[in-house]
């Protein structure tokens, strides 16, 4: 019997066209994902090949989720439900089949079909990767297991669980809606698990909670090197196995529940309901009574008030229909649950949260957009089909309504729902803030985002859905098309050349909110774009009205004919107005982005960059004079976002030969007009006038020829005036450097530079290949390049310069640049500041202007130097000023004590808007982002990020400003790694070892994840090529370990010697090859290998504790036996590992229960390991609970958790 039901189900499904449509769809998307360059689904980047096993697994996982689960729900939700819907249930249930056979037969039949459909994805990929047009360099050789393994490990369990879930839901609830709600619940669970994943401690939990397997994939391969990603498949072991087992088991629970609870005799859901609600009438009136009732005549009106009244009535009806429907309530509740789950951590940096300010809450509320999309798609379709679904359409259609009334009513009904939800979101937001103890609600900001950006998104997409529903006139097909549009439009449109925001449906956003600059200059382009799309949507609305189905003719051809009749005056006027709105705003946007301002597509920009390299690379090493003095007048006009910079550089020929050509590179920012650029003779012997010899306007590169070449030692004055003028708005939002409040830029952004700029070249291999450039391009000059050794960190325009600037800004703002304030005065409505640096400094200066409150303190360093410490902050952002102030003091004290005296008399921190999240160290000046310290809510258990960032930036005054490194491979180790080290040492004085451990654990995680995402090659630290995961993250770990091994004093002594030797030199700048000997000098012979391991190679460990045991000795002593396994590897640039012999000292540690209940170390000693498996025996004075090797994770280990293990008792 089972088999007959099974085969019936199978053949029924095989005959359905939907089955083959799903199969084809799966195959097509999978094919396109690998074979179509324009579509990247979970694709490889950099060195990870396009068909690497991890990529295949990602593609399959994504396809399993979307559209996979939708397909599963469509198939598995109905096998039982179908019998109720078609009312065949009574017929079937009265036959003598057994319940188990019926249920299992249906389930297995449908599940077999689902399996078949998903093999479509497998086939699609396998065919796709073999397409001849694919670049063979981007592929790994075909291996069947790369495809089969993820299918077996992920796809089959996933669809099995989902099939069970939807089958059980459909069979037991007998409602498709319930299946639908189950689907959303699964999505919510996934998003919550994603949220959990962002916290290091919760990753395992997140991996288990996620039925889709995405998280378990992430956690498994998060630290895989490039080669592993290209060769290794996910196997059914460890966490993957646990996750899979959990969900498969839950699937079995589902089917068990179905077998147990399902009953043939229970009537279907609908019938049951009807019975309960059946209404009976009282006794009928007599015929006479009925005839006696007169129907009063009513006045029929038909003016515009009538239409309005009709529309309002309709919208009320629809509003009620939506709000009272169960899926709506379910969607909304789940959305709110998700919001609350997401509100558990805000924009966390290293586990430290920001305050739940209103704009942070708004970012959390954006998660709800997903639910808005579901509501738009689902209810947009429902409303258009409402009357037809209820079969009351003929009554409505015969009402004397103008054609636009129904659709307007539906639209306003949706709008009313949105308003309700938006208000509910605000209430949720305010509640979240309240529960977190934050009471500055800023309701205005809630409104200014939700009722503009979100609301317009809702309106435009609703009208779009209405339009499609009308045109396509098939509800489910339209749902599918709209969902595909949501998923792929943003990806595909730009790829096929429709990149301009005028093409991007619904484009225009308010961008980042900053307390300092609010929504800034995003408001104007945002508004224009919104009116543009609203106009477009209203045109669609008009077409929708004209073509809407009224009456029983649904054919588009007939409706087109009817539309002519329906094109009455009001609709004509409306259409014309809507079209004018669309056209006019479109023209205005085009006028702004493409005529007032310059627009270039990304292809054009790449082309320009390619040509730049082709034409001008020849000048890369051409000797140019160096800037030795800069004097500027910079007038900033915040209200209009303009500035004028006028002044001069003094250039000096520091080369050995004469220089006759001066190469000037201007910024590519077209807002900046170079008004003048002239050269002036400095002395009678020197060079004279210059003339413009060659212009490369495309690259804004100009070659001037001097009348008399500059001889070595000669100087030349270069005058220039640059005018930055904001006109209208630009495509893509425009620069956030010059803003209404919180302008911050540095000289390299806008001021003229000298010579060819390597940074302008195309860096991605794919682009270089396409434009015929040599594919191999070194990211940096080699460490031994003598030319490179003469170029300081910030570029080859200058060594050190004399610097002076007069700035002016609005009277409401304060303007700040490096140097000391000489004079400050007000003239009219302008506020002037004159800054001058009293010693030479880097050619690197910041220009800042904002409305600030200032905290100022005079403080003497322990060395007796008097300093002023200042923090310029946004009013109200006072939460962490003390921490920053303390950070400045502690770090300056430490650095003065261990390295050298601080070279300035002042230090200033100034807040800038959170468009970027960094802080940057200029001479006596540190601009510090609003987002990474000022609004952090730092609790006792949190890492004090404000303090850490301050200490890091302070350290740059030494590592970078006092001793400047050469701009070659490894350079960032000298500035960034040393600053990390310095900051760690400052933090170590204040924080517990556990807190340091917590910080380092984040650093290790980021390093290991960073190397997994490497696009070119991983370098050893000493040869780092601007790879932040190496110079910051790995830098922290190895330097912390180094000072642990050879002592903090030794490291500091080495750094001090290095600094004394190299500080202030301008003839040649140090490289890591110059620093490392100082480290070697202070390192004992037995530990010399550390320098090699940490700096010169990529070294990884795989250490773990095997089963440690203890026995009780006399006098409450315990002997602990700790067997360990340690392996040491060298990795190449792609992460290929080779095991190397051990001659290493490592920590062996034993933990006991401390007084506070936490484990604390009672034994920590370094032991030498010479072989992979070693057993240690130590005696401790307390009962051990855990023991192991390298318990504090000082060494880089991809699996740090197994370093310690529970200690067992020996009987």
């Amino acid at each position, binding site marked *: 019997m089972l088999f007959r039901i099974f085969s019936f189900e199978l053949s029924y499904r095989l005959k359905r066209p939907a089955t083959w449509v799903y199969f084809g769809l799966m195959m097509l998307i999978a094919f396109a994902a690998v074979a179509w360059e324009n579509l990247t689904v979970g694709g490889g980047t950099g060195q990870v090949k396009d068909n690497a096993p991890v990529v295949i697994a990602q593609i399959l996982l994504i396809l399993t989720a979307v559209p996979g689960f939708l397909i599963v729900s469509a198939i598995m939700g109905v096998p039982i439900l179908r019998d109720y819907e078609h009312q065949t249930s009574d017929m079937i249930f009265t036959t003598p089949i057994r319940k188990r056979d019926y249920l299992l037969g249906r389930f297995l039949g449908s599940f077999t079909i689902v399996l078949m459909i998903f093999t479509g994805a497998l086939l699609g990929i396998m065919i796709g990767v073999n397409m001849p047009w694919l670049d063979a360099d981007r592929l790994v050789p075909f291996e069947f297991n790369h495809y089969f393994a993820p299918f077996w490990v992920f796809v089959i369990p996933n669809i099995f669980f989902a099939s069970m879930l939807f089958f059980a839901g459909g069979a037991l609830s007998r409602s498709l809606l319930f299946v639908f709600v189950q689907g959303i619940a699964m999505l919510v669970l996934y998003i919550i698990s994603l949220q959990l994943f962002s916290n290091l401690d919760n990753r395992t939990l997140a991996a288990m909670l996620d039925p889709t397997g995405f998280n378990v994939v992430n956690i498994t391969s998060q630290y895989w090197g490039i080669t592993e990603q290209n060769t290794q498949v996910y196997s059914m072991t460890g966490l993957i196995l646990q996750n899979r087992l959990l969900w498969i088991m839950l699937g079995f629970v589902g089917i068990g529940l179905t077998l147990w609870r399902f009953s043939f005799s229970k009537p279907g859901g609908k019938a049951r309901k009807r019975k309960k*609600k059946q209404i009976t*009438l009282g006794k009928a009136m007599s015929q006479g009574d*009925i005839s006696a009732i007169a*129907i009063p005549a009513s006045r*029929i009106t038909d003016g515009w008030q009538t239409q309005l009244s009709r529309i309002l009535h309709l919208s009320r009806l629809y509003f009620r229909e939506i709000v009272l429907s169960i899926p709506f309530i379910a969607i909304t509740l789940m959305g709110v649950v998700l919001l609350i789950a997401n509100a558990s951590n805000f924009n966390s940096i290293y586990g430290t949260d920001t305050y739940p300010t209103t704009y942070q809450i708004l970012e959390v509320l954006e998660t709800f957009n997903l639910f808005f999309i579901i509501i738009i798609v689902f209810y947009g379709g429902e409303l258009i089909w409402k009357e037809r679904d209820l*079969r009351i359409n003929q009554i409505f259609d015969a009402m004397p309504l103008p054609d636009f*009334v129904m659709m307007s009513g539906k639209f306003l009904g949706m709008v009313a729902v949105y308003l309700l939800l938006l208000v509910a979101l605000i209430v949720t937001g305010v509640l979240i803030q309240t529960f977190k103890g934050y009471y500055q609600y800023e309701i205005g900001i809630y409104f200014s985002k939700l009722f503009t950006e979100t609301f317009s998104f809702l309106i435009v997409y609703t009208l779009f859905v209405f339009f499609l529903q009308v045109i396509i006139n098939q509800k489910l097909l339209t749902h599918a098309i709209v969902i595909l549009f949501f998923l792929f439009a943003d990806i595909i449109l730009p790829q096929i050349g429709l990149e301009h925001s005028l093409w991007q449906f619904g484009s225009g956003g308010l961008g980042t909110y900053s307390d300092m600059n609010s929504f800034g200059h995003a408001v104007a382009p945002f508004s224009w774009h919104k009116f543009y799309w609203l106009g477009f949507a209203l045109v669609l609305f008009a077409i929708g009205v004209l073509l809407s189905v009224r009456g029983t003719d649904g054919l588009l051809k007939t409706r087109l004919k009817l539309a002519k009749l329906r094109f009455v005056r009001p609709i004509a006027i409306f259409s014309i107005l809507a079209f004018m709105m669309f056209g006019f705003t479109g023209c205005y946007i085009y006028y702004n982005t493409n005529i007032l301002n310059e627009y270039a597509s990304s292809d054009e920009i790449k082309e320009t960059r390619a040509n730049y390299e082709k034409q001008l690379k020849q000048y890369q090493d051409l000797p140019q004079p160096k800037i030795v003095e800069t004097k500027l007048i910079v007038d900033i006009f915040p209200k209009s976002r303009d500035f004028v910079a006028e002044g001069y550089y003094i250039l000096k020929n520091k080369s050995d030969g004469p220089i006759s050509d001066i190469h000037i590179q201007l910024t590519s920012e077209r807002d900046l007009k170079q008004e003048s650029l002239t050269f002036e003779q400095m002395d009678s012997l020197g060079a004279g006038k210059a003339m413009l010899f060659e212009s490369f306007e495309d690259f804004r590169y100009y070659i001037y020829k001097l009348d008399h070449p500059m001889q070595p030692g000669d100087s030349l004055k270069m005058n220039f005036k640059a005018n930055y003028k904001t006109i209208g708005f630009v495509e893509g939002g425009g620069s956030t450097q010059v803003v209404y409040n919180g302008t911050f830029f540095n000289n390299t952004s806008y001021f003229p530079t000298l010579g060819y700029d390597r940074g302008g070249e195309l860096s991605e291999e794919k682009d270089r290949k396409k434009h015929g450039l040599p594919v191999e391009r070194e990211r940096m000059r080699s460490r031994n390049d003598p030319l490179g050794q003469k170029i300081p960190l910030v570029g080859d325009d200058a060594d050190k310069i004399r610097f002076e600037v007069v700035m002016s800004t609005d009277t409401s703002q304060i303007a700040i640049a490096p140097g000391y304030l000489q004079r400050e005065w007000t003239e009219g409505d302008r506020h002037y500041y004159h800054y001058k640096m009293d010693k030479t400094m880097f050619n690197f200066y910041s220009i800042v202007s904002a409305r600030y409150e200032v905290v100022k303190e005079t403080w003497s360093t322990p060395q007796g130097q008097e300093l002023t410490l200042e923090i310029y902050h946004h009013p109200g952002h006072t939460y962490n000023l003390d921490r920053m102030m303390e950070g400045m003091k502690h770090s300056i004290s430490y650095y003065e004590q261990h390295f050298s005296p601080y070279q300035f008399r002042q230090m200033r921190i100034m807040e800038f808007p959170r468009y970027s999240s960094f802080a940057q160290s200029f001479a006596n000046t540190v601009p510090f982002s609003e987002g990474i310290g000022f609004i952090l809510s730092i609790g006792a258990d949190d890492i004090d990020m404000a303090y850490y960032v301050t200490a890091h930036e302070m350290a740059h005054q030494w590592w970078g400003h006092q001793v400047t490194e050469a701009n070659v491979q490894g350079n960032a180790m000298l500035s960034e790694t040393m600053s990390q080290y310095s900051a760690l040492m400052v933090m170590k004085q204040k924080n517990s070892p556990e807190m340091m451990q917590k910080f380092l654990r984040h650093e290790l995680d980021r390093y290991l994840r960073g190397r997994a995402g490497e696009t070119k090659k991983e370098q050893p630290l000493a040869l780092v090529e601007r790879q932040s995961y190496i110079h910051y993250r790995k830098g922290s770990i190895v330097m912390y370990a180094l000072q642990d091994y050879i002592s903090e004093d030794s490291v500091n002594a080495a750094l001090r010697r290095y600094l004394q030797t190299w500080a202030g030199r301008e003839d040649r700048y140090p490289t890591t090859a110059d620093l490392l000997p100082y480290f070697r000098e202070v390192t004992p012979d037995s530990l010399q290998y550390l320098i090699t391991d940490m700096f010169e190679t990529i070294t990884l460990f795989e250490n773990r504790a095997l089963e440690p045991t203890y026995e009780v000795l006399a006098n409450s002593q315990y002997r602990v036996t700790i067997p360990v396994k340690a392996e040491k590897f060298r990795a190449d640039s792609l992460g290929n590992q080779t095991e190397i012999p051990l001659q290493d000292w490592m920590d062996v540690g034993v933990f006991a229960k401390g007084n506070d209940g936490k484990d604390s170390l009672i034994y920590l000693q370094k032991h030498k390991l010479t072989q992979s498996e070693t057993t240690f025996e130590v005696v401790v004075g307390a009962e051990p609970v855990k023991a192991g090797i390298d318990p504090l994770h000082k060494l880089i280990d991809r699996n740090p958790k197994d370093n310690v293990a529970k200690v067992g008792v020996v009987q």
Partner: protein
Amino acid sequence: MKLQISNLSKTYPNGTRALDHVNLEIQTGMFGLLGPNGAGKSTLMRTLATLQMPDTGSIQLGGLNVLTQKKEVRQILGYLPQEFGVYPKVSAERLLDHLAVLKGITDKSSRKKLVQALLEKTNLYDVRKKNLGGFSGGMKQRFGIAQALLTRPKLIIVDEPTAGLDPAERNRFHNLLSELGEEAVVILSTHIVDDVKELCTSMAIINHGKILMHGNPLEAIAEVEGKVWKKRIHKTELADYEKAYQVISNMLIAGQPEIHVLSDSMPGEGFSPTEADLEDVYFSYIHAASTAEPAVSA
């Protein structure tokens, strides 16, 4: 007011000829449109109710062109479709009120009175607060009538209104309809001959999209009076009789067929004359139409 249908034709994309040069003139009063399932009744009704466009032809209602002046027609139209649903979670009163607004009755107090009167008239007043989802077929049908009467319509179109009603409901329904016929053109489509017999002063028979007969029911009956003969036969004989005679209908009486035969004189042995009724008229036309074509060619 007079409804004039001229030369109306409609062919569906699948080739079905739903209306074939239909010409009808309908005066104020009850008009019955009789025809078997699939005869084209509903197509004609929907076309009259402005919900469908014919391929050719015209419809004139008083001074209005029904095909182009839809809004004006809809203002004086009361339409009860053949099959319709309701908003299940809305009460009868609320939905009726809502439909009244759509009809253009914007004044709140007069709308309230109207809705109350209609609910009383259709005997739904007691359940006015109840959600329509719980209504029985008859109650739903009465609700349909109530909404069709919202604006004292001049043209009332009721499509198969009594299908599925029990005899008592059907009776009440007829009473209501007949009241309406006093001041409006009421077109009732049905395949139940008794409906027409009981209600209509004028009628037409339609099949395969063609009007087979148009006139007064009583006159139509008079036309066949004396020509209808009946005979009770054995089941096995039915085929033979159908070959030999113009059998317009057969029905089972206590398990044995009784056939009606149309004939100017006594058709044969065992036949007895029977009083003609509308049913015989109906079947005679349907029968004639279905056999006419081969007959003409012969």
